[in-house]
């Protein structure tokens, strides 16, 4: 890389914001964030509450739920590529669907309407255990005497959850949301392996878009501009989020 020659000002940025595919990638990232926060995190919290209590076999469940997290995104992506095969004879998911009356096999990764949902299922499979762990730790950090005091005051289970546990878990929820959003903004390997952002850009995310321009088409200038926008999005989110939530921290 030499000094900047052929300086073209903000041309690249202008091009980015007029590119339909980039806008699609932003939209997909937002959709993944909404699904993660609305579906994945509540599920993770429910699991944590269930196995956070003293039940037999909790170590087993915890180990199993967290296991997908330690598999690489490459292994995960190829595994699900096989499982999602449109042919029921080859793809397990469709074999199961074929078995259930009323449901039909689908081309999960080949259908523009289904592909993002299919990817979200994989993301949930892989990352739910991580968020569950965060919530388990958060639950363990709640001082026992607060719960005991509440019990003496006669609160029932539901009140305990909404008035005691959830408020005290706020710090953990904050962390989990933060990591989930940042994670959603940077998804790369899974999508690249399963769909390369396709079909027809239906599963394009920011990093696959950036990677394609930088390393497949080798338009380094344009790729850098995309990377800068990703950086600005991540940093802006981090700073604003930290600023907004700085006071809600619960000090144990």
């Amino acid at each position: 890389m030499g000094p900047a020659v052929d300086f073209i000002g903000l041309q690249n940025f202008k091009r980015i914001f007029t590119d339909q595919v980039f806008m699609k990638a932003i939209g997909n990232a937002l959709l993944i964030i909404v699904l993660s926060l609305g579906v994945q995190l509540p599920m993770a919290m429910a699991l944590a509450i269930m196995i956070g209590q003293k039940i037999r076999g909790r170590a087993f469940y915890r180990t199993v739920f967290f296991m997908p997290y330690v598999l690489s995104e490459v292994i995960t992506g190829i595994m699900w590529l096989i499982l999602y095969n449109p042919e029921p004879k080859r793809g397990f998911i469709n074999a199961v669907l074929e078995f259930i009356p009323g449901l039909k096999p689908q081309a999960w990764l080949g259908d523009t309407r289904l592909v993002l949902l299919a990817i979200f299922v994989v993301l949930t499979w892989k990352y739910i255990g991580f968020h569950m762990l965060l919530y388990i730790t958060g639950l363990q950090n709640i001082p026992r005497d607060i719960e005991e005091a509440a019990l003496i005051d006669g609160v029932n289970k539901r009140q305990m959850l909404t008035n005691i546990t959830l408020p005290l878990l706020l710090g953990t929820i904050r962390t989990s949301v933060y990591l989930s959003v940042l994670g959603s903004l940077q998804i790369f390997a899974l999508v690249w392996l399963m769909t390369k952002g396709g079909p027809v850009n239906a599963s394009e995310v920011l990093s696959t878009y950036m990677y394609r321009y930088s390393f497949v088409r080798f338009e380094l200038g344009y790729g850098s501009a995309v990377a800068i926008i990703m950086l600005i999005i991540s940093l802006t989110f981090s700073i604003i989020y930290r600023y907004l939530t700085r006071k809600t921290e619960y000090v144990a």
Partner: protein
Amino acid sequence: MLNDSSKKRMKFKEYILVIFKYIFLTLVAILILTPIVIIAFGALKTRGEFVTNPYIPPIPPNLGNIIRILKMPIFWYMIRNSLVIMVSTTVGVVIVASLAAFVFSRVRIRGKNILFNFFTLGLMFPVTIAILPIFLMVRQVGLTNNLIGVILVQTAFQLSISIVILRNFFMDIPSELQDAASIDGCNTFGFLWRILMPLARPSLAAVAALAVVTSWNDLVIPLVLIDKEKLWTLPLGTMQFQGQYGMDYSLISAFLLLSAIPAIIFYLFAERQLVSGLTAGAIKG
């Protein structure tokens, strides 16, 4: 007061609830394990068996695919490269992060907090975003197609989280300990080496476990820095292998199984360290 029959009813209700909880948790466990099990089944079948009966347990198991992969020299190159990178990265991260965390927690220097905040900036943006400038920089110093390039970048990106974890741990150690050590004639470095490091062993293990998993699973950095086949890491090679044998699902499943086994074994042995590293890093960060 509750009478006997309503007490019994309560107990019965709770009993039912517990059973439902177990059923639900077991269902989730099955959902999570099924994909792994199906792939493992496929790995132990011949290509023909895979086509005719893809989902039944492979009895008797066919080890043909596994043996075929174990005989490929490229597979052993991948294992070796991944191991070299993982071990070097982990050692580098532990050494540099503990020295940095020591300074940030124990040594008085001007502008320490600004520097520390600068270090934690790394937590705010992931490696994927920075991958293009990284590629250009590493290419400029001539370390593409070189394991050292991968090791340096991986180490750099693992430092933020590791420093945060270790600094928090070091801060919790009372300063009286340092005073006592210095009265006994221990200098600053001796305090770090003889007193802090042994005390910090659980945190060091957590940091190391985190580095091991992150390095072992990393695709993006080797993907852009390496294209020589002999230098492929396991994730990079797995991806290329999938491209090459795309339709032979039983062979690919065998490859996935072989590359998943080390990760799963490591996880089963180091679960506690890994979990404490992840949660400490997330919650304190």
